[in-house]
């Protein structure tokens, strides 16, 4: 592991200790954030799975009745019938904040001229199959929009979780050990210096004593 190169001084030691404490606090916070994100994510994914299954099932039915409608009506006629929508879907997008991840919230309203059940074609040239397949499709619309919302939310949460996880790991396995190591090194170095200093003082004291009482000392 690359070690932190610092001068073994008290100043540096204090600085490092401060940084280590910050790192530890940050680590704890990020870990909490990650756990909460994960909880939210799992909830979203559960919901998504349910929606997805429902939509996919519904789609199967829709296509089936559509091809029946096309066979009965003729493809040209079908296109003509559908091309001018009487219904207008309005989509509103809001944003929601999940642990500071901004995710979109979709609100979808389907409005027709005469309420939601109006059809945009005359009944004379189209078959009843078309009516029923469109009804089925309208039924699945809300779910589709919800599906889009959940999918987006899941993806954005996944991204954020990944990033947070990396940060947590970087702090836990790289930054914090590095600081600890540097702190330990400075401490040993300082102690070493201290011991050197004490021996030096003792030595100096001996020399001074020898100078002043040199002879007496020797005699004693």
């Amino acid at each position, binding site marked *: 592991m690359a070690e932190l190169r610092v001068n073994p001084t008290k100043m540096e030691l204090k600085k490092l200790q401060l940084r280590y404490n910050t790192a530890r606090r940050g680590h704890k916070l990020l870990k909490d954030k990650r756990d909460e994100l994960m909880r939210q994510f799992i909830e979203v*994914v559960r919901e998504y799975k349910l929606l*997805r299954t429902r939509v996919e099932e519904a789609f199967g039915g829709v296509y089936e009745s559509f091809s029946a409608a096309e066979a009965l009506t003729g493809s040209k006629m079908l296109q003509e019938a559908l091309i001018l*929508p009487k*219904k207008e879907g*309005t*989509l509103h997008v809001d944003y929601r904040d999940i642990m500071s991840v901004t995710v979109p919230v979709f609100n979808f309203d389907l409005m027709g001229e005469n309420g939601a059940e109006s059809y945009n074609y005359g009944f004379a040239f189209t078959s009843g199959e078309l009516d029923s397949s469109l009804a089925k*499709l309208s039924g699945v619309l809300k779910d*589709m929009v919800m599906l889009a919302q959940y999918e987006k939310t899941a993806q954005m949460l*996944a991204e954020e*979780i990944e990033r947070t996880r990396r940060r947590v790991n970087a702090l836990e396995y790289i930054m914090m050990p590095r600081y600890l190591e540097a702190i330990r090194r400075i401490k040993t170095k300082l102690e070493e210096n201290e011991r050197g200093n004490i021996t030096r003082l003792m030595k100096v004291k001996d020399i001074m004593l020898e100078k002043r009482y040199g002879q007496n000392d020797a005699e004693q």
Partner: protein
Amino acid sequence: MYRICIIGDRDSVIGFMALGFSVYEADDSSAAGEILKTLAKDKENAVIFIVENYAVELRELIDKYKDLPLPAIVPVPGKDGSSGYGMENIRRATERAVGADILFKDKN
């Protein structure tokens, strides 16, 4: 005003015309890709549904928009039925987030 778009082959998407979606027909996945790129530039296209068999081939392009709030690009089954690609997508997201596939392992 936000729009909902759908890209796919004619037979798969025609029904959505009646529901006020912006429908874009594409004959193959590269055409669909071009349409998708243009649509994604406009922030009003909030939700873009794309038929699964095209989505599979356009995975890289779609992944680019993954981390932006808008647009939400969602694969939907086409007239040939579901290939499970949509689920696969969310499974990959789970793997990315958790590091392991914890939610779907019972199925595979």
